[in-house]
């Protein structure tokens, strides 16, 4: 396989800062952080997704929506290097992803906390893996518990926590090792509406503050618009990119007030209009 140009640029050394500036300042084409090139993945005879072309820029909050089974989660898994594409390639910072991509943090609908560890020990897990000293771990964990608002629960086991608190704990754990990119697969799917909104606010604020890139899969169209800088709409299986919508809402937005926002209403309506036919079709199958 020939390496694309991106790879060469990245090899030149300390380009990180200038690339970031480019992203923010100019319309030139900088290296995308994640790039899917003619990406396809089949599981046996089932073609989950094919021919996906998608670039995700650094610092962006991108949501992926589409009918169920259109391969949205497949895209996240491939970016994390959990499996290899059967067609095309995935590039991370210009290099093809082979094997586990340690620059990403993964969060799924199930929180995957370790039931035998307390909240603080769960959050400490990635730090232990990195080999930090126990003093460093302690202070970092304290910070994180504060950040996600779990004060007073550090000694609790996951089984003693509510669903929302478990999500906060999982979020703190994924933030603990400071991955550049967060891959989130319907992380708030199981939460009730009120809690979900609270978590959305938290996530959006935190990621903006920490400059994280987020790729967020959801089936909730309101969520997809409310959180996103860009929203990618997929077709039914085999999933392809149907449309990429620029969500031109302010970067610092008040999610609690969005419901009444006319721009937000317009955007959700158009996403709905895009997806309604495939939803209808899915119903008939």
């Amino acid at each position: 396989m020939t390496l694309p140009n991106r790879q060469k640029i990245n090899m030149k050394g300390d380009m990180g800062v200038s690339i970031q500036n480019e992203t923010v300042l100019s319309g030139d084409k900088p290296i995308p952080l994640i790039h899917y090139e003619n990406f396809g993945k089949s599981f046996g005879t089932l073609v989950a997704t094919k021919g996906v072309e998608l670039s995700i820029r650094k610092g962006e909050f991108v949501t992926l929506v589409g009918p169920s089974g259109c391969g949205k989660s497949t895209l996240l898994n491939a970016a994390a290097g959990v499996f290899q594409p059967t067609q095309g390639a995935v590039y991370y910072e210009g290099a093809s992803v082979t094997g586990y991509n340690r620059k990403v943090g993964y969060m799924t609908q199930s929180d995957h906390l370790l039931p035998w560890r307390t909240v603080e020990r769960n959050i400490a897990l990635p730090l232990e893996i990195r080999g930090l000293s126990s003093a460093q771990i302690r202070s970092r964990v304290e910070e994180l518990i504060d950040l996600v608002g779990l004060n007073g629960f550090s000694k609790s086991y996951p089984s003693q926590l509510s669903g929302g608190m478990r999500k906060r704990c999982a979020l703190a754990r994924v933030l603990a090792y400071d991955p550049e990119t967060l891959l989130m697969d319907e992380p708030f799917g199981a939460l009730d509406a009120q809690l979900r909104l609270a978590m959305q606010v938290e996530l959006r604020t935190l990621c903006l503050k920490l400059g994280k890139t987020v790729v967020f899969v959801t089936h909730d169209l309101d969520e997809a618009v409310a959180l996103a800088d860009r929203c990618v709409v997929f077709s039914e299986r085999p999933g392809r990119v149907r449309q990429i919508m620029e969500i031109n809402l302010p970067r610092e937005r008040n999610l609690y007030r969005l419901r009444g926002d006319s721009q937000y209403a317009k955007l959700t309506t158009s996403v709905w209009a895009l997806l309604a036919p495939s939803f209808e079709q899915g119903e008939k199958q």
Partner: protein
Amino acid sequence: MMRVWLLRILIVGGFLLAWQFGSGSVIPEFFVSKPSIIISKFWLWVVNGSLFFHAGITVVEALAGFLLGGLAGLSIGMLLGRNELLGKVFDPIIVVFYSIPKVALAPLFVIWLGIGIEMKIVLTGTIVFFLVFLSTYTGVRNVSRELVAIMKLMGATERQVVLKLVLPSAVTWVFAGLRLSVPYALIGAVVGELIAANRGLGYLLSNAAGQFDTAGVFAALIGLIILAILLNMAVRAFENLVLPWQKETQKREMSI
């Protein structure tokens, strides 16, 4: 709670009274003895120290077998659970051996090891091995692959995955196997003593039976019951120490 205890005491007390006065009138005393005689026999053994001597031997056999079988079951279960090839090769072989009633191996162990304490330890160990092996193997196999992937993304090495994820998540299963093994360890030791021995609670029991001393048989049974209860309590206490989160889970109020 009070009512439960009151009922319990009434039932047990009633049973003992019926036994005491029914024996000799309804059923010949030769077959069932009398609670009062059993208690005095038991007390006699306590006072002259023979109970502790024999119980001590049985405990040593059961514990040694429990440790040996448990350790072997744990390590081989880990190995076969983590190594796919070995697991596939040995899986059916172990299932075949599992289906043998382990007690039937006792005569073989007598030929190999004689009638000393070694034979009882090996018999107990064999019984415990299979129980612990199977639950460890299942536990290791059931470690969530998603969690393994998530840990790998955090940068974990294979060793860290085993230490921080596979071992602790298998511990729950291991303990299920261990708890299950306690009564079986006792069975192994006692059966070994019944077959051939000159000491141990099983010997005390068969010796009393050989002399048609019904009260002695029942007294030895009481000793065995007390031993089983103590061993169970020890495992439970150890479990609460090692798996504190399980206790927390049990404390939660049930809801669906």
